[in-house]
């Protein structure tokens, strides 16, 4: 029996090839360099993905593009291969991400410049975080080391807070959308947390690239709740960091920024008491010195008064002594008493003797 080959119509054949492709490659990731990148009608993105041995046309919509792309960038696309009705083989791209340090950096710089131009990172947009929050929202992976660090430091430093945690992926293609949903979730709550914290520990540039996703960065900037982002290590800078109201160098640093350290509060209280004691001791010393000085002054006054009285007494005594008739007699004078007429008898008292005499003459002095 001879082999009978099936005869397809063109459309059927195209559909059959597409079915085979879909079965063989439901979703594939291909790495290559972008060439002939263009956007038509502001909606449709076309580019070629090439390497030294070949080139494939790619198609996607602008809404699927989460990072800026330009010719020459090395990227990885997640796509479905397809044969178009015109027989052209192409990739329908679902997601695209930069590949390699150079492309990651390039994409980062392009998006940074774009968002900076829009004012998303401007200091005027930054809001202060609450001094001591009662309710915080945390977006992180509960399995990540960065989250564990954040919670540990938070618990060590302060308590009494309601901490609502949205468990999301913080790495990989799904991460940005999950974080966006979590931000929306917190912002739609009836009672909003006072601050929204997004944390993730360190990783490679590729691991952290989720935090450079344009839609995520825009969602952070648009959050009604003030945001604090602590991603990676101190040297890592993400666009999410730049869009946040406050940037923390690490997840641990985020916890340090958000709450005071209760040990410092206790130390502060003890220090305050110590200061009070010093102040009291000083006041007691001052009062003692003042009392001593007042007493000394009182003594001095009493002594002075005493001296004055003694001097006065001495003067009075001297005065009295001067008035004493005996001292006059001692200076050679005499006290005459008796009948001062001629023939009368008088007594003459001198310092050492008393004489009795008869008056023989009385004459008036000039």
């Amino acid at each position, binding site marked *: 029996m001879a082999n009978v080959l099936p005869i397809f119509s063109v459309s059927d054949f195209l559909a059959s090839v597409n079915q085979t492709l879909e079965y063989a490659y439901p979703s594939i990731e291909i790495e290559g360099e972008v060439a002939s990148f263009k956007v038509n009608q502001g909606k449709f993105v076309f580019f070629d993905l090439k390497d030294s041995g070949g080139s494939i046309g790619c198609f996607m919509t602008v809404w699927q593009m989460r990072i800026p792309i330009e010719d020459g960038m090395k990227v990885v696309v997640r796509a479905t291969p397809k044969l178009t009705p015109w027989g052209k083989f192409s990739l329908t791209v679902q997601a695209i991400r930069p590949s390699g340090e150079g492309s990651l950096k390039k994409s980062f710089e392009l998006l940074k410049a774009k968002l900076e131009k829009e004012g998303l990172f401007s200091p005027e947009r930054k809001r202060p975080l609450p001094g001591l929050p*009662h309710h915080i929202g945390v977006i992180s992976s509960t399995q990540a080391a960065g989250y564990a660090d954040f919670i540990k430091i938070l*618990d060590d430093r302060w308590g009494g807070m309601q901490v609502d945690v949205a468990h*999301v992926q913080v790495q990989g293609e799904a991460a940005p959308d999950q974080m966006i949903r979590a931000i929306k979730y917190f912002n739609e709550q009836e009672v909003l947390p006072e601050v929204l914290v997004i944390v993730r520990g360190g990783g490679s540039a590729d691991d952290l690239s989720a935090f450079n996703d344009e839609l995520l960065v825009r969602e952070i900037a648009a959050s009604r709740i003030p945001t604090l982002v602590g991603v990676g290590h101190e040297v890592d800078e993400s666009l999410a960091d730049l869009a946040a109201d406050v940037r923390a160098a690490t997840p641990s640093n985020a916890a340090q920024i958000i709450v005071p350290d209760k040990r410092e509060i206790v130390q502060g209280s003890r220090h305050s008491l110590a200061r009070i004691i010093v102040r009291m001791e000083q006041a007691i010393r001052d009062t003692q010195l003042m009392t001593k000085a007042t007493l000394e002054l009182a003594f001095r006054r009493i002594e002075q008064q005493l001296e004055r009285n003694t001097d006065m007494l001495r003067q009075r005594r001297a005065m009295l002594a001067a008035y004493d008739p005996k001292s006059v007699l001692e200076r050679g004078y005499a006290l005459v008493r008796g009948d001062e007429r001629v023939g009368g008898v008088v007594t003459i008292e001198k310092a050492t003797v008393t004489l009795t005499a008869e008056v023989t003459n009385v004459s008036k002095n000039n």
Partner: protein
Amino acid sequence: MSAKTTNLIQDKLAKLNEYVAWFDSDEFALEQAVDKFAAAEKLAEEIEQDLAGFKNEINVIKKKFDQE
């Protein structure tokens, strides 16, 4: 409940600061200082005790964020 506790501690801290400020102010009088010091000391002890038993309430939201 936790917000109330936090407020209480904040109130106590504010009160303690008031006492400290009084000791530094011109209103300071040795006659009142002993009583004020005793009150401040009691407050500092209370703050220390409150902080020691101060725990956060961590609640992982049940909602999944991997789909709309």
